[in-house]
């Protein structure tokens, strides 16, 4: 059985109307006979049949409009199993064929025409409303024209071009020369002296910590941790090493913290635009105090996978480079959690402020001798206070406490950390 379908007479023809049948069910037809007349936008065109056979049934009525390819009649060919005539049916037509790479796929992956029109219509509505908002904004603050090159130069030199009242370009537009002048003027004039690097850093720290305090709901926990096992382990290890190879106890504590964090993703990641994104690895930021004032946070990448020796080398290297201003941009910006240590001459304990967009910060007090109860007996012990400040939007005290205990447990078996 072969289906006769509404024929296409041109690519711009989507439908056709069956104006008139010239055959009825039961009629025999031969190849080339005109079986119907089709009404198109250009007028009437005869439709021929391409096979000999007998009309089985007509499925479209006169005057009916149908899509191209829609069935309009059934034709029983003379020898029912005549393979050759319906070879064409088995192959899928060019349009519906889905070849891997062809010129059609370029058009296929566009949305269907009418959806596409719908999208562009409501895009246009959105665009108009956005435009009117921008005009509002622009009216409000004076629109300052600046050339692209000047904008780039201002960014490079750290000049805030918005403070310039006008420029030397057309209609007062700000151009390169204005940026260079502003930069040089700031450098030369003693009164309005250019902020020294230290002052700029202080300003940066100020804005950062105040923002952190304002936005992040901190909660604080603190735990005193016995250090004697770690110290004994280290003194054995450092015994016959030259000073520059010796391991500091802080490196041991950092390593314990980094490994513990592997099981506590809520304390190692980034909170950005209302969304928390845990970090797959621990980039352990540690605060390095600079002799000229201020601190820098350097990140030890993948700290959880480093042995204490390796971690110590990284620590020593980063501190040295930080003090020579040689830290790489990536090292300064990529910490996923931070540790701030008061050092062995500081206070007993320290609570810190989280560095956004991180969600936790540890504070180490100075290792100190104090009485300690072991199996109901008082002994002299060396203890360090480890504090944890964390973001209550992401974690809660209970899991923070379990984290501190995990760190404590790791520090009691120091040889595993080496």
């Amino acid at each position, binding site marked *: 059985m072969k289906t006769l379908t509404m024929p296409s007479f*041109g*690519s711009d023809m989507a439908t056709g109307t069956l104006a008139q049948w010239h055959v009825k069910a039961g009629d025999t037809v031969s190849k080339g006979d005109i079986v119907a007349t089709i009404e198109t936008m250009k007028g*009437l065109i005869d439709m021929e049949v391409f096979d000999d056979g007998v009309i089985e049934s007509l499925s479209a009525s006169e005057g009916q409009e149908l899509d191209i390819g829609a069935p309009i009649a059934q034709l029983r060919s003379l020898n029912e199993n005549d393979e050759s005539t319906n070879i064409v049916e088995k192959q899928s037509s060019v349009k519906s064929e889905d070849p891997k790479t062809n010129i059609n796929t370029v058009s296929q992956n566009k949305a269907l025409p009418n959806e596409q029109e719908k999208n562009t219509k409501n895009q246009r509505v959105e665009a108009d409303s956005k435009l009117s908002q921008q005009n509002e904004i622009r009216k409000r603050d004076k629109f300052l024209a600046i050339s692209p090159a000047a904008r780039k130069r201002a960014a490079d030199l750290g000049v805030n071009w918005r403070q310039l009242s006008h420029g030397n370009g057309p209609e007062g537009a700000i151009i390169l020369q204005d940026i260079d002048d502003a930069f040089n003027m700031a450098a030369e004039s003693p009164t309005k002296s250019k902020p020294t690097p230290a002052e700029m850093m202080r300003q940066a720290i100020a804005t950062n910590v105040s923002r952190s305090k304002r936005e992040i709901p901190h909660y604080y926990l603190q735990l005193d941790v016995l250090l004697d096992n770690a110290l004994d382990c280290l003194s054995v290890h450092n015994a016959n090493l030259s000073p520059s190879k010796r391991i500091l106890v802080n490196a041991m504590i950092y390593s314990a913290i980094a490994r513990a964090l592997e099981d506590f993703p809520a304390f190692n990641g980034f909170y950005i635009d209302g969304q928390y994104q845990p970090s797959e690895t621990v980039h352990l930021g540690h605060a390095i105090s600079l002799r000229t004032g201020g601190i820098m946070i350097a990140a030890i990448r993948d700290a959880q996978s480093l042995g204490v020796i390796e971690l110590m080398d990284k620590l020593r290297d980063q501190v040295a480079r930080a003090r020579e201003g040689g830290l790489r941009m990536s090292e300064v910006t990529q910490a996923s959690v931070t540790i701030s240590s008061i050092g062995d001459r500081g206070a007993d304990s320290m609570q810190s402020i989280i560095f956004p967009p991180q969600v936790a910060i540890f504070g180490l007090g100075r290792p100190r001798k104090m009485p300690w109860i072991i199996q109901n007996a008082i002994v002299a012990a060396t203890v360090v206070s480890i504090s944890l400040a964390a973001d209550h939007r992401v974690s809660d005290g209970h899991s923070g406490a379990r984290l501190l205990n995990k760190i404590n447990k790791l520090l009691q078996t120091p040889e595993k950390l080496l």
Partner: protein
Amino acid sequence: MHTNNNKIHMDIAHIKFLFKEMLRIRRFEEKCAELYTQEKIRGFLHLYIGEEAVAVGVMQALMPEDAVFGTYREHGHAIARGLSMDKVMAEMFGKVTGSSRGRGGSMHIFDVEKRFYGGNAIVAGALPLAVGLALANKMQNKNNVVTCFFGEGAVAEGEFHESLNLAKLWQLPILFVCENNGYAMGTALAISESQQKIFRKAQNYGLAAHAVDGMNVVEVESAASQYCHSIRNGEGPCLLECNTYRFRGHSMFDTQLYRDADEVEQWKIKGPIKKLKRWLEANGKLAADELSQIEDEVAEEINKAVAFADKSPFEDVTDLHLGVYAEETS
């Protein structure tokens, strides 16, 4: 087929060959019509049904080294010139295995090995090209004939007059073949040309020219052979006007309001294939089983071509820029 003292003696085997060649074109074009209504072939499709005798007749007079320029109604030219149906069909399917990598479609079939320099969608657009190729042959002392097909519509274009003048001015080895089918799309010859005898226009430019019954393949072949013979003797360009008729519309989307149905029927009776079949049968040279065997062979060749075209891949979009310039070809 052999020509002596330029009187053509046709043996029966050759006449049957002509019959089958015309039938191959006829059935090929009918299959194209079917595939077009099923949206397998897109773009414009101009069928050669009714004019088969012209292409088949003229091609017998050509050598492999001779060149052919077709028109956009070129399937008959291509098949009669010996291009494979597979490549022609694949070209209309837009497939990379097509004669022009699928980039030209029905109106731009190229096959340089067969010296077939394409159809051309600009009416009379190819006439100057043919003149140029003939000029190159002459300058390189190649004694080949360039054949340029065009419809009677082309004679209204300036390029027809410029080309015929250049051809005669430079005594070029070129055979112009005018397929006068009476209509330039919807414009009858009578309402577009003061002088409707196209060969007279050529005679005015000094070309040897005359008209033949374009429905009689034998007459077309003998006329074309005589002209090619004189061209190869250096007697300059010729024009052969073949009075013929297209049984289908200008293209697939044509309501044919410009002519009435019985005129078409009249011409169908004088159709080239029907005429030759009647002659062969009358002389007992074409038995019924032999005819159906020919039909089966033709149908098989066509179905193989459709299958080949259908399963061929499209050109990869990343090759889009290949061939814009010579250096970017691979």
